[in-house]
């Protein structure tokens, strides 16, 4: 029997090495391509073993960095504001719903649950955000539609508050004369760090990676593009790079390393995620597991 176990352990390890490589190698191709000289890229295409490395793409990006830095700044602004806002709104809502004595909490809970079952789809939503709230070509377009609060995280959080915080503590605090806000800030939040960090992590990732809101709502204000919108636009037209902020470079006679540059920008976009991911990995795993348990 032990023999079985050992054999399976070896097979399992081998399979996971292959799986891990299959997840990593495509990213590596992105990185290596971005460091390949443009001449070789034009000759041989993207490759794991380029004949010649080069910094053409990064050099060009550095020379025309204004546009890219702007997009990066937007990504950071949107991610920070979005995540904080999302955490605030979600936590307050979920905490309210978790209070068992609150009149009307069943109807409120049902309303938030119902949003997970039924929605009006993108057209009504798009028309409302553009015609009623006029978010088109504003920063709000990247923060408000859909991303700010999901019924799912409210329910997950409500369940956490309701089951993980002993109601005796809350009762004792009430007897001591603590107000609702004080109770939330001093007692509930410190006890809820795992769920708060999980929701913050998922929300932060969603904002960092979002490009769909930009696709829908940013039409003229390309200066509001996040790095993902920038990449998305670049995919459909390398011209975008040439005829926007980089006109000066063209007129100065610099050739755009258009093959390598796509990969270089993609690499720049994922660097922050790849740097912080190993430290937050456990948080992500926990988040996925918590999220999968029914709310």
């Amino acid at each position, binding site marked *: 029997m032990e023999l*079985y*176990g050992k054999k*399976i*352990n070896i*097979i*399992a390890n081998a399979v*996971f090495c292959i*799986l*891990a490589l299959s*997840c990593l190698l*495509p*990213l590596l*191709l*992105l990185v290596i391509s971005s460091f390949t000289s443009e001449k070789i890229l034009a000759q041989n*295409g*993207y*490759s794991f073993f380029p004949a010649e490395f080069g910094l053409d793409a990064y050099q060009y990006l550095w020379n025309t960095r204004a546009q890219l830095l702007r997009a990066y700044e937007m990504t950071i602004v949107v991610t920070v504001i979005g995540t904080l806002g999302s955490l605030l709104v979600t936590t*307050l*809502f979920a*905490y*309210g719903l978790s*209070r068992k*004595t*609150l*009149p009307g909490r069943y109807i*409120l809970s049902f309303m938030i649950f119902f949003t997970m*079952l*039924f*929605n*009006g*789809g*993108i*057209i*009504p*939503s798009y*028309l409302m955000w553009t*015609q009623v*709230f006029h978010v088109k070509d504003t920063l709000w377009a990247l923060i408000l*539609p*859909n991303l*700010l*609060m999901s*019924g799912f995280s409210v329910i997950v959080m409500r369940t956490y508050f309701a089951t993980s915080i002993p109601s005796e503590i809350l009762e004792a605090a009430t007897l001591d004369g603590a107000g609702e*806000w004080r109770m*939330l800030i001093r007692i509930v939040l410190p006890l809820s760090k795992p769920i708060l960090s999980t929701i913050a992590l998922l929300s932060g990732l969603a904002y960092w*990676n979002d*490009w*769909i809101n930009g696709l829908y709502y940013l039409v003229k204000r390309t200066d509001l593009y996040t790095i993902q919108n920038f990449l998305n636009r670049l*995919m*459909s037209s390398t011209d975008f790079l040439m005829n926007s902020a980089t006109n000066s470079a063209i007129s100065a006679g610099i050739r755009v390393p258009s*093959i390598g540059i*796509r990969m270089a920008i*993609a690499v720049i*976009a994922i660097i922050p995620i790849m740097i912080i*991911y190993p430290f937050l*990995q456990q948080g*992500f795993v926990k988040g*996925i*597991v918590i999220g*999968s348990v029914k709310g």
Partner: protein
Amino acid sequence: MANQSQAVKRKSLGKEIRKHLPIYLMIAPGFIYMLINNYFPLPGLMLAFKRFKYSLGIWGSTWNGISNLKFLFRSPDSWIIIRNTLCYNLVFIVLGTVFSIAVAILLNEVRSKRKQQVYQTFILIPYLLSYVIVSYIVYALLGGDNGMINNQILRPLGYAGISWYTQAQYWPFILVIVQLWKSFGYCSIIYFASVIGIDRTFYEAAVVDGASPWQQITHITLPLLKPVIITLTLLSIGRILYSDFGLFYQVPMNSGMLFSATNTIDTFVYRGLLETNDIGRASAAGFIQSVLGFVLVLTSNAVVRKVEKENALF
């Protein structure tokens, strides 16, 4: 008497509400956002039965009965987008579930806890990437002139390069692989959490009885995973009319020659709204997606409730 007690009740309800005023204040921002983001757009569904004009708005536009739906179903697009959405999702559900469970079970067979964690870290990487980044990776592999597969594999072997982005027949496979690649880590981790929750003594007893590893999987692991499998499959079936916009729009680079294999309800609605200004057909398709999707969630949940009540979602 009855009046009096009702009055008392009302009075105490009023008192209760006043007592909870700070809580209502806390709920207010999220509640208002929910009303705006999720409930205000709902009347917009009636656009499926209207001839929409931007100048008249949703309420002011004139009704035109079911002509949007008729128009939608007369065009060949309707068949393609419904077929694509349903078939891709079915394949994703079946392959995704089987593959993720296999990975989860195998991960549990890795002895070292440290290694388990390292493997989890790696297989979750694709889940962290946006579809924009994924489409760049796919482009690096499949690009016609610069792609790695054409340049480093096919041409050196003496084949002609394939123009991937113009030939639809390859895309069912490409999209399935990409989707599986991006999501298997996530699903495996969900299943893995359930696998490690299984009581070890079951296996010890099975080993004593001489059960082979395969028998242990089929007689212990899989039956105990059934609730999770049912819940996750139910969730996917409820969303079978929805497709990941990024996968079907971004990864094929919105290439018109691939539409027969890549157009789904979501990309069709997007293009109708923003590219071709065909809001009639797009809102008809969106209406079907919302309403039929809702019916599907309720139905699949009702079916599970009938079969095994404790696995139902609600």
